[in-house]
Structure formats: structure tokens, C-alpha cells
């Protein structure tokens, strides 16, 4: 017969000792964990927070690591970080060289799904409403315009995950080179919807099925989901503008080994 749970009489003094030990233990482990989890050891390149992420100090407590943003992303751009990624455990990130955010889900679904507003949807909602008000003012006679078509681009443009940085040393256009074929190797799994591609509408398809033939490479400019507000060709080389949202499509589809256009965290 197994022994019965011995009912230990614990004195007030003993209880106090256990309590102090617990308090010190939890405090020490907690402080260590906090130190480890707040350390960002990535160089910030191509590793971005999802759209709408609030300021990092706030993001660290607001994110409860539930992963709803990961689940809802139709192109699997959002992933959860492990300690090995150099980011706080369980927080969402995008590695845009592997899979960029092409806004093809429409209405910022990862932001909308976040229950704790670590990805804050209110700002996008307000931005969308502003765009509608503006459109109505500019087009007083247009009564049945497509609200979504007005709202969404404004929301996309409001996003600020990071900014593209061009490396003119390796950029094909800067070296006067053209590009023919598909930008990434055959095993590359990333997908995106090209705004220039009317045939496929806005549904994303593999990078490998996007074919180009340019005498001077400008695919980062033509396939930018934001368009001329974000990147233009100037003096035959791409130029990143204020409007860049950091979505990372250009980084993902840059044909050079080691992308010539990278993303810097916002």
C-alpha cells in the first residue's frame, strides 16, 4: 500500500522561509527571463514586425504570443520567433527575404485579428475613414463608389514596417544590367501578387512563376504593391521614397545573390 500523504504541520516560521525562497526564486528567474526576452540580437535587417505593430516597448507586453496573426496570414508571411531568432520568444515577425507581405489579404487581417492591439487596427481604420471622407469631398457626384477600393490602398500606404535600402554596389540596374527569367532559385517557396499582373488579379502565386525580361532590371519598382509613392526609377536606378511601407516584396524578389535591396526595421 502506498504511503498516505503525510500531513506536515508547517510552522509560521517555515512558511515564511518557503515564501522568501519563492519570492527570491521567482524574482531572479523572472529578471533573467526579462533580460533575455527583451534583447533583440538581430541586426534588424529583413526581420520585421507585422503591420501595425505598436512601439517596441509597448509591443513587448501587448503581444501575448497567441499566434492568431500567424494563423490568419494567407501567405504565411508572419511567423513566431523562437529564442534562436534573436527576437523575444513567441512574438511574430516577418523574414521578408523568405516571404514578404504583399497586402494581398486585403484588409490587414493580422492586425484586425490581434486581440490585445499589439498590432493596432484602430489606426488603420481611422486612415481608411479619412480616405473615404477625402474621396467624398473630391468627388461630390460619385454616390456609389467602391468604398473598399478607396479604403484599402490608404490602409496599405499607412503601414510602416520598415524602409527599403538600396545597395548600389550590387544592384543590377546600378550596374547597367538587365534581368531575364525568374528572380529566385527553383526551390524558393515565397509567393506574391504582382500589382502589374492583371491576368492573375490580386491572388498571390509563386515567385518562380513570375517571369521577367527587362533590358535594365527594375522589377522592384514595377512589382512594388504600393507603387510610385514608395519606389521610382530615377537616373536609371531605383530610388526608395518616403512612402515605402517595408512590406519587403522588393527584397524577396531581388534577383541578386544576397538582395541588393534590404529592409531596415522601422
Amino acid at each position, binding site marked *: 500500500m502506498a504511503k498516505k500523504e503525510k500531513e506536515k504541520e508547517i510552522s509560521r516560521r517555515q512558511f515564511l522561509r518557503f515564501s522568501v525562497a519563492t519570492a527570491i526564486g521567482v524574482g531572479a528567474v523572472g529578471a533573467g527571463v526579462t533580460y533575455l526576452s527583451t534583447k533583440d540580437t538581430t541586426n534588424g535587417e529583413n526581420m520585421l514586425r507585422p503591420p501595425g505593430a505598436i512601439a517596441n516597448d509597448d509591443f513587448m507586453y501587448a503581444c*501575448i504570443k*497567441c499566434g492568431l496573426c500567424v494563423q490568419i496570414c494567407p501567405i504565411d508571411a508572419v511567423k513566431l520567433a523562437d529564442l534562436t531568432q534573436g527576437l523575444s520568444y513567441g512574438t511574430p515577425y516577418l523574414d521578408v527575404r523568405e516571404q514578404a507581405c504583399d497586402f494581398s489579404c486585403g484588409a490587414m487581417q493580422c492586425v484586425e485579428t490581434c*486581440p490585445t*492591439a499589439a498590432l493596432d487596427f484602430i489606426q488603420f481604420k481611422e486612415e481608411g475613414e479619412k480616405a473615404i471622407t477625402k474621396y467624398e469631398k473630391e468627388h461630390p457626384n460619385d454616390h456609389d463608389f467602391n468604398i473598399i477600393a478607396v479604403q484599402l490602398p490608404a490602409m496599405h500606404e499607412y503601414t510602416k514596417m520598415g524602409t527599403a535600402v538600396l545597395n548600389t554596389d550590387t544592384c543590377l540596374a546600378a550596374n547597367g544590367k538587365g534581368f531575364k527569367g525568374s528572380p529566385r532559385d527553383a526551390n524558393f517557396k515565397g509567393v506574391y501578387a504582382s500589382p502589374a499582373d492583371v491576368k492573375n488579379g490580386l491572388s498571390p502565386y509563386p515567385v518562380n512563376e513570375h517571369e521577367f525580361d527587362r533590358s535594365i532590371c527594375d522589377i522592384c519598382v514595377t512589382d512594388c504593391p504600393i507603387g510610385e509613392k514608395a519606389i521610382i526609377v530615377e537616373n536609371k536606378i531605383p530610388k526608395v521614397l518616403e512612402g515605402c511601407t517595408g512590406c519587403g516584396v522588393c527584397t524577396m524578389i531581388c534577383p541578386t545573390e544576397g538582395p541588393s535591396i534590404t529592409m531596415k526595421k522601422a
Partner: protein
Amino acid sequence: MLFSKKKRKGQPLPAKRREDMPNVKEGLTFKQWKAKHAPNHKWRNKRWAVLLTLNTLFWASFAFDISVLEGSLSGSRFFGIYLMDLFNSLQQVLIRVRTGNFGMLTTNFFIGIGVIATFYFLAGGRTFCSWICPYHFLAENAEKLHNWLVKKKKIKEHSYAIGVKYVAFAMFLVLAFVTKQLVFEDMNPVGIISRSIIYGPSVLLLWVLGLLLFEIFHTKRFWCRYVCPMGVTYSAIGKFSPTAIKFDLDKCGHCRDCQDVCLVPHELWFVKRGEATKEVHFAGADCTRCGLCVDTCYGDALTITVKGIDSLL
């Protein structure tokens, strides 16, 4: 109860006389009586089925992209209804009150808290622990291994004051408030296992493994009994729940086998001969409603009941 010495209300009833013992009433010896009403695993099987199904559903919802149970145990969505973990939310609210960002929280966040709080109030005690928690599933089996090792005299039993979990609970809240981080979530084995099941294994599983080994070879159920603030939160919510384990003194043979299998034996203090102060007792807030005692009880003295409507059932 901060001290293991129970502040029991009232004087104990007189110890049961021999002719009142359930085996004597059936005209059997104690051994024969126990053999006649052999324990089963009815509740345990149901419980494990629920636990494994839910955690599989979490995994399947992501793996096959079906909108059934998305998210993880720190926050999820069940057919579109948000569910939030309560201790996590408590830290969240506390930090946001400090930083002044309380207003940013979404309606879904509060819906999630409401649904979970209501559910666990109705289910009672630490139901979450034994019916949902994936760490519990591992720890429950680790506990069996631990008990076996103790029985074989390979290791010694260690126990501390049950009340230190309230100190840990308070400390985690203080840490959250001071550091503005969800400190607990970074070391929470429940979240780590849940996320590892759904999104792929994390290196932090090593920490969970370490905890389990410590529980097997040193302190029985160390994390669950003495640390886990999630359990404390759920037990606070479920303290006055209508669902409870009911103890019927009249049917009890005082064998105390239920305390052997019980995951929180201090909640079954009344089964000891001469301890009960009333004819009917209900297990307290730490009770996980696991049903192990119900499966074991030879005289059906312990049953899962819903107060108020138990006569209808």
C-alpha cells in the same frame, strides 16, 4: 489557505463506528468490499480524451487552416469567439493601467476574458489544469513515475507549503508591473508546449523537460503545486462554482485511496477518519475536477455534482 494546518470550521464529527462502515453494512470484510467495487478509469479516460482532442484541435486548426480553434492557450478563437487566458490578461491589464494604454485594448479581448471566466466559474476549481493543460498531461504521468520511485525508495519525497503559490502569483504580478513585460509567459510551460504543438518545437522545450525531470526526481508536481499562477487564477474564479466534488461521509470507508490518487490531496482532508465536520463536504478551490477520486472510491462517497440541480441529475 496559507498554512497546511487547515482552519477547519467547526468541530469534527465523532469518528465512524464499526457498524456504520459501508463494508459492514454490506456484510463484507473491508478487503472483500474493496474487491467488489474495484476502481475504474471512467473519468480519467474522458478527461484525457478531452485534453488530447482540444490540443489536437489547436494543432489541426493551424495545420489544415480550419477555423475551429485558432491561436494557442494564451489566447485563441473558438469558431470566431475569442478566448483569453486569465492570468495573462491580468498582467496585461496591470501593465496597461501603468502605461496608460488601457483604452487600446479591443472588445474581443474583454469578450475573451468574459467567456473564459464564465466557463471556469461554472466548471469550477482548477478545471483548466486537468482537462485542458498540456503540461498537466505530462506532469500527471510524471507524477506516477515519481510515486513509483518513492515507493521503490529510490528517491525521497519533498514537499513545501501549498501556500507559496500565492507568493509566486504575487511576485509574477509585481514583476510584470515593474518590468512592463509578460514575464510569466516567457517561462510558462503551458504556453511553450501549446505553441510547440501548434507552431513547431521551441528550444524552450528544454526548460519544460528540466521542470519535468525535477518533478520526477525531486519534488512532486513542483510547478503545478507551488508556482503556477495560472492555476491560482483559475482556482480563484472557480472557488464558488456550482460544479464540485461532493463527499458523502456516510458512504466513506476511510481507506484514503482517493488521497493517494488525488492531484491535490490537501483538498480531500475530510476523508480521514474523524476529520469531517459535516455529513457532506465539497472539495475546495484547488480541486481540478479530474475525477480520479471518483473513479477510485469504493463506496461512491465521492461524486462530481452540480450544486442545486444534483437532485435532478
